[in-house]
């Protein structure tokens, strides 16, 4: 009876593993950290399954858990991404051309994304990839909507320059 929410969350979260990992990678900039972060998120979600409201989006709830674990962890370890401790640019790039059978420039774009300040990278992922509205992103990030907009504009501007310099 009391296990029902737990089972629902446990079975539901499998469908979101890849996207959770991508978010974790965007935050941490390191593949192994990302995997640990997803595992911690899953365990905590199962543990707190009774706090999940059926009918709301499980993926969004998981994202919020992942983010809070990351913030606590990184505070504890003082390895906040974006302070140059982790080389996000390296870690975000996909290993080996074999992974990309479609688009050669994708690896370059990923490197440029990896080189963005982590706050911009996270906001870009949430809004452009995960479909958060400005308001939803602002809520999750605990930042004003104007900040969300500025980060997105700055990220787009940087990625525009990356493309121009690559063509030059």
């Amino acid at each position, binding site marked *: 009876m009391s296990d029902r929410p737990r089972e629902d969350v446990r079975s539901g979260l499998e469908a979101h*593993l890849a996207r959770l990992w991508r978010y974790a990678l965007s935050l941490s900039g390191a593949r192994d950290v990302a*995997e640990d972060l997803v595992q911690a998120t899953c365990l905590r979600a199962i543990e707190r399954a009774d706090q999940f409201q059926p009918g709301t989006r499980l993926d969004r709830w998981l994202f919020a858990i992942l983010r809070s674990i990351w913030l606590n962890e990184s505070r504890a370890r003082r390895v906040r991404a974006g302070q140059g401790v982790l080389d996000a640019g390296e870690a975000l790039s996909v290993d080996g051309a074999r992974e990309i059978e479609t688009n050669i420039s994708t690896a370059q774009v990923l490197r440029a994304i990896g080189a963005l300040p982590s706050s911009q990278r996270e906001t870009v992922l949430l809004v452009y990839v995960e479909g958060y509205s400005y308001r939803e992103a602002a809520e999750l990030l605990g930042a004003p909507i104007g900040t969300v907009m500025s980060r997105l504009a700055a990220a787009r501007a940087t990625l525009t320059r990356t493309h121009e310099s690559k063509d030059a």
Partner: protein
Amino acid sequence: MATSEDDDRKLTAYLDGELDEAERAALDARLMDDPTVRARLEALRAAGDRTRMAFATLLETAPVADMRTRLNAAPPRRQRVAAIAVAVAFVAFAAGLGAGRWSVGTGGEVAERDDWRQAVVEYMALYTPESFGEAPSPRLGEELASLSRRLGAPLDVDRLAVDDLSPRRVELLQYDGAPLGQIGYLDGATPVAFCILRDGEPDKALAASSRDGFAFASWAQGGRGFMLIGKIPVERLMALARSLKEKTG
């Protein structure tokens, strides 16, 4: 006039559909008048499109199997016993999420994985005729062979040529851990995409529908989901879909 950081913010919000009506109207007027602003808008748009594409590729490299194994190694708590009940509950949950915003076919039934079709519709809205290239990809044969392996479906240039259309571009995307292949065509100047999701979808008859100005045909067979989509008349789309279904089935 050069554009400023403030312009970038406005143009970004414009692209993201986050400006209010008055701001949008003001920007529309500037876009009409000022080619510099227009060019900047296009550059920012392209940067966003590339970003989405790159993140989609990243998903493909996620170590899903490892993560699943680790998760399953965690203390079980009677998971197996309730496996069937859980599966049923999950289907109900997924259907609840999808209800009202997505249905395919005549029964109004919401299939578990139909969200990928919605994702394709949203993605298609980003395409222009240029997206599918001036000329067919020179490595089309190799790309199709590779896609064929990933999807476990027989795909080659002959099978994919229907009516007067032939494939121009091949892309491997991904939806929720399953490979999603996309073959791009141009019907005149209109992008048309044939998408295949390698997934455990139950067989479903060919049915047409429309959404956001797109006509699309969808079906599922042999464990794979198929979809043909484009802003072309639905009769034409269905005729193309029938040929594709026959040749790739």
